[in-house]
């Protein structure tokens, strides 16, 4: 068997870094700013090798001044640069939310479309390794709630590269969330999903298209990032028992691909939405409401939601395990739903 470029395997972090490197080669306006993105290569490896290749002018370590450098990315984007900022953990949004919420997301609109902010803010999300309440959130909905931001959360190395490339080329501010466990880092529990086939040549994956990652007839499970992989594990077990789950990876929260979800629900007539974010006012609620609006009469059973039960992420292993979704919990919910 000959090894072609399309069979090359990369970890999530290398896929992100490759997308950035290729766009930096292609477009001199692209540059990166963030804490420890230089020689260290990013705490989650998203800028691995970039400093060595492009130097400190275009791969800039910043002080711990998130308001300052994210605001500066906005200012530079307005002047024709295409900055990529890294907010090390999404949890740190609190110290710079004005720049994100009131500035980055609104300036295009407030200017009547006259000011463009072609920038990417990338950030690490997710828990499951006891990093506790201030370092384990996903906060998907916090950002998706705000009009004016594209918010994407790829679940595979292939999508990480393709969606990062799209994000950099997009003329809008894009928040790209990478999941820590899907970066394939040497210091986290290794999971298969953090390594995947990534073509070497540049390519794009459109922002705003969900993907059916497993076909099935009995119920639809909708998720993002880790919840997709958990759902796939659960689906394999359900299949052993004759229940065929269809799994939809949203990939993007804004724009939201409603059609793919609705099409799946029309086929399976049952819906379980899984989220590593908080339950209330979150993605699960949005999907449930959207399906209720567009496909209520296609449902054979009430919609189910599985998400973090409205508590901060606790530290201790037992406690964290209790609040986070996992394949076992998805399996149980899905089985009950399928038999309802």
């Amino acid at each position, binding site marked *: 068997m000959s090894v072609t470029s399309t069979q090359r395997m990369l970890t999530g972090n290398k896929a992100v870094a490759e997308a950035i490197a290729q766009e930096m080669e292609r477009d001199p306006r692209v540059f990166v700013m963030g804490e420890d993105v230089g020689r260290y290569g990013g705490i989650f490896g998203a800028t691995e090798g970039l400093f060595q290749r492009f130097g400190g002018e275009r791969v800039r370590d910043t002080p711990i001044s998130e308001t300052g450098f994210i605001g500066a990315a906005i200012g530079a984007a307005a002047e024709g640069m295409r900055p990529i900022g890294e907010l090390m953990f999404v949890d740190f949004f609190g110290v710079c939310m004005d720049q994100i919420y009131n500035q980055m997301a609104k300036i295009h609109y407030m200017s009547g479309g006259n000011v463009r902010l072609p920038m990417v803010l990338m950030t690490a999300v997710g828990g499951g390794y006891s990093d506790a309440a201030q370092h384990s959130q996903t906060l998907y909905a916090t950002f998706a709630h705000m009009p004016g931001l594209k918010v994407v959360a790829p679940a595979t190395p292939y999508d990480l590269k393709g969606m990062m490339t799209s994000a950099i080329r997009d003329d809008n501010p894009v928040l790209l969330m990478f999941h820590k466990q899907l970066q394939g880092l040497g210091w986290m529990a290794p999971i298969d999903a953090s390594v995947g086939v990534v073509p070497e040549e540049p390519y794009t994956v459109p922002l705003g298209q969900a993907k059916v990652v497993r076909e099935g007839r009995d119920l639809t499970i909708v998720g993002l990032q880790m919840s997709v992989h958990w759902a796939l594990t659960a689906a394999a077990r359900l299949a052993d028992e004759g229940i065929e789950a269809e799994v939809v990876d949203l990939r993007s929260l804004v724009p939201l691909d409603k059609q793919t979800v609705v099409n799946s629900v029309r086929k399976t007539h049952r819906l379980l939405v899984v989220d590593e974010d908080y339950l209330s006012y979150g993605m699960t609620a949005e999907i449930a409401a959207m399906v209720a609006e567009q496909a209520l009469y296609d449902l054979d059973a009430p919609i189910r939601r599985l998400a973090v039960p409205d508590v901060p992420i606790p530290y*201790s292993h037992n406690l964290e395990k209790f609040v986070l979704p996992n394949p076992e919990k998805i399996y149980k919910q899905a089985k009950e739903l399928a038999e309802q």
Partner: protein
Amino acid sequence: MAVPADKLKWMYETMIKIRHYEEAMVDAYGEGKYPVFNIGAGPVPGEMHLAAGQEPVAVGVCAHLRPDDTVTAPHRPHHHAIAKGVNLQRMTAEIFGKVDGLGKGKGGHMHLFDPEVKFSCGGIVAAGVPHAVGAALASTMQGRDSVAVAFIGEGAANAGAFHESLNLAALWKLPVIVVIEDNAYGISVPKPASTAVPTNEVRASAYGIPGVRVAGNDPVALYQVAQEAVDRARRGGGPTLIEVETDRYLGHFQGDPEVYRDKDEVVHLRQRDAIQAVRQQMVADGMATEEELQAMEQRAYQVVEEAYAFARQSPNPAGESALADVFAL
């Protein structure tokens, strides 16, 4: 102004306690994480930021504090907690994620709260500085003479919260001391690459308050500087900014590959270890005999060992307890 013998002995014993605590934590944290390092595994999972080498900062300042004075600490909090007199057994149980922990296993190593001795810390850089300002405000409004100390790293002195807090503290003349631990790095970024001025005490002038730098990781020099700052704050004389040059012997966190510094840098730093220097000084000054010192060391070790033993035997919290404590009842 010499350090009184009882204070210096307390400082020495406390530094020994801290050092032993941190070294024991290196081992406890490492349990179950290898051969391939896995941050989420073992009895102490998650991130771990240790303060071996930074003991002088904690003891030089906390030697002047009372239980009713407030301390806020950052993500690297063990030395401050120990020097402030946090319940070591419950602190350790928290770090092991156990029910007897300060936060019943909900907080972990970066989020330790001991209201009994007015200690708190957190994982968001510079977030504790305004809390110290608020504690000082409360002290003033309640007619008390207690003070508040915020410890932060030199990297945190570039965060907005630091500057806003200093202005507020100066404006309202509050009894706050902000202590910057300059260990030369914010994770991988060396201070000159992040900070527009060579030393941070000069930033005090922007807020019209005294700023002092203590060089050489020297607990005795810091003791004296901190004495003046704490006395001034208690008298109603307002805030002080202190920057202390200190040494981080370990990685930013355990498991840090430390690609950003030479391996012999730490070897060199360890040669000026303050704990040994204080010990030698006490012997030279006839302040303590070898037997006394050994007794102190023995006591410090024992307290630490007991704390770890307590933590290990404490039960794990039941999963459902994750749902409690979101709101006060």
